[in-house]
């Protein structure tokens, strides 16, 4: 790919991304969604966040690793516990990273 093609491609990527983000904000901005759809949208955050988290922890890079020998799994579980208990994002990330480093040193 030549340099101008690179830049044009990147611009197109940006427009696609932006278009996706803007799409529903514009489309649904004038229309009142039916109740059922509204209620379904409330489930977007737990669904998408889980969809991102589960593979990262349990199947890093595509390979299943549910063994206790997976430091990320244990660190992730510890972090999940902290998140659930404290609802504190800073603590969750801090404890999670610390747990990972500690486990990597041990395992």
């Amino acid at each position, binding site marked *: *790919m030549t340099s101008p093609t690179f830049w*044009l*491609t*990147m*611009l*197109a*990527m*940006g427009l*696609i*991304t*932006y278009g*996706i*983000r*803007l*799409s*529903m*904000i*514009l*489309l*649904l*901005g004038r229309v009142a*969604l039916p*109740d*059922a759809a*509204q*209620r*379904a*949208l*409330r*489930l*977007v*955050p*737990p*669904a*998408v*966040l*889980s*969809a*991102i*988290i*589960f*593979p*990262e*922890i349990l*199947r890093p890079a*595509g390979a299943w690793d549910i063994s206790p020998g997976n430091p990320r799994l244990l*660190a*992730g579980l510890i*972090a*999940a516990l902290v*998140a659930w208990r404290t*609802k*504190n*994002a*800073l603590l*969750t*990330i801090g404890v*999670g*990273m610390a747990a990972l*480093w500690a486990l990597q040193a041990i395992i």
Partner: protein
Amino acid sequence: MRAPTPSSEFLAGVKAELPILLGVAPFGMIYGALAMTAGLPVAMAQAMSSVVFAGSAQFIAVQLISNGAPALVLLLTTFVVNIRHMLYSASVAPYLRGLRPGWKWLLAYLLTDEAYAVAILHYQQADEAHAPATLSPCHPVTLSPCHHHWYLLGAGLALWAIWQLCTAIGITLGAAVPPSWSLDFALPLTFIALLAPVLKDRPAAIAALAAGGVALIGAGWPYKLGLVAAALAGIAAGAAADQRARRSARSPVRVTLSGSAAQHSPQRDASEGSGHGAGDASAQATGLSMTEQMRPLSRVTTQHSPRQDASEGPGHGAGDASAQATGLGMTEGTRPLQR
């Protein structure tokens, strides 16, 4: 409660986003370093962080470019990888309805996973804080200014700034970012931190489990299709659970003996289908005929319908219904809902 002002909301958004920035920062740096390894020109690597402004898409794009992928593949991949943002867009759209176009265009640009997650939680909490029977001055139906969009702006701008900065740092440090530090783990940790407060009720938990399961199955699929499938599966499963809970709240079948009323109240904020509990409690407490019994419940439900763009959870409506229907210590039931 003090009325929110634009600046208080903006600062609150930034503040809420700060811990998230901690998780995103390493990711940005790794992207910058990766872009250099892949041979991207510095200007392009940096520009992508503002032109595209989507972490996972940027990562995948860099790898595709270094593998010599044609432009069409890049575009298709970008589209599929980022399609989940359409869900964010749809989910946040009702809250942005009264805003001028300029706001919508700007906020859409800033709608990343992390900014969205923090903001949607804020919007939902704002919904729950308003008692349904009263129209507070800050209300989605009247479109009175709540300034919550400033919160999203704050969170979004904070993330944008960190992303540009960390991209630059990553580009500068290049290979000097040690992979042995496992800094990439900070991002899934961030998402774990974002997920916890969102698991408020049973439909949400079911949505999360279903999505997680499908995501695990589809983890190997190309173009992150597994993620999209998982998100849709999770939404479907959660919506089904939500429907079931609502239907049993309205069904005139349940008559249980006394004692269960007390049992249900403390469980209100636990992941029970709250509508379910209200149906039980009000059935016992008044001893009216079932149809009369359920009428207050359905009246409240229809009251809520025009306000569904406030996206109230099922538990909220049911809690009020039981308070009306029984007048007993059912107000205890509503307390957990009002934070």
